């Protein structure tokens, strides 16, 4: 009888401990999401990069302007970088959404560069830059939310 009672107590304790772990995982899933400014910075970097084809005919000094802008954004990002960026433990397949985003950005940039170089359509790099910025701002937080939930064990 005493043994059964002890086992029941242990069972209740174990359930309480598991509930604590579950609550902590929910906290992790929230706290590990990067602030929106991180994706704003990433989108700005890609957008400036998308505008680089426009500078192909510019004088050397002027064509360095996007590079200077990129350096400025990177410097700002390094100072304001959210610490969670370095901390999440990403595993295997979790890199796929990021690779997909990078691939889409690369294709968009390549198409825009070819269109601008071949037909001189000045607006293509501008549209590409806007799409890169908007796409990063939309897809980034969604990928991040998925990562945070997965590493926290909320989606397992």
């Amino acid at each position, binding site marked *: 009888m005493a043994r059964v009672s002890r*086992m029941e107590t*242990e*069972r209740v304790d*174990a*359930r309480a*401990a*598991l*509930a*604590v*772990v*579950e609550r*902590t*995982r929910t*906290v*992790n899933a929230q*706290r*590990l999401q990067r602030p929106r400014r991180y994706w704003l910075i990433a989108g700005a970097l890609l957008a400036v990069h998308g505008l680089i084809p426009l500078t192909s005919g510019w004088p050397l000094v002027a064509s360095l302007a996007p590079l200077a802008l990129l350096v400025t954004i990177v410097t700002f990002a390094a100072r304001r970088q959210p*610490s*969670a960026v*370095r*901390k*999440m*433990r990403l595993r295997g397949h979790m890199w796929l959404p990021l690779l997909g985003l990078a691939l889409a950005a690369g294709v968009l940039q390549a198409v825009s560069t070819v269109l601008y170089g071949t037909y001189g359509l000045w607006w293509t790099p501008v549209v590409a830059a806007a799409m890169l910025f908007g796409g990063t701002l939309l897809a980034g937080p969604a990928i991040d939310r998925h990562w945070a939930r997965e*590493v*926290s*064990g909320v989606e397992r």
Partner: protein
Amino acid sequence: MSAEPRALPPLDPVIHPIQRLRICALLEPVTEEEFGTLRELLGTSDSALSKQLAALGQADYVQQRRASRGGRSRVWVSLTPRGRRAFQGHLAALTALAGGSEG
């Protein structure tokens, strides 16, 4: 004569205290976490957290490193591979003990 109940996996006495369980759960999804952030998340004091980390460190479940960034010295805490295994084992034991319905 009644049959003996099936043997359950053992609980880890080092991780079992709730604050240490929370520390392990907070460290599990990250490569490392800052001491100050852990303290805030746990709502505890420096000394209480240090005490719990020392107990986990003695079992080689966590490690700490000091690093300076932007002129500020910070202590970073991480679970060791042994600590990760122990935490997973402890969760499995808790789940089994709870009746396998949670976790």
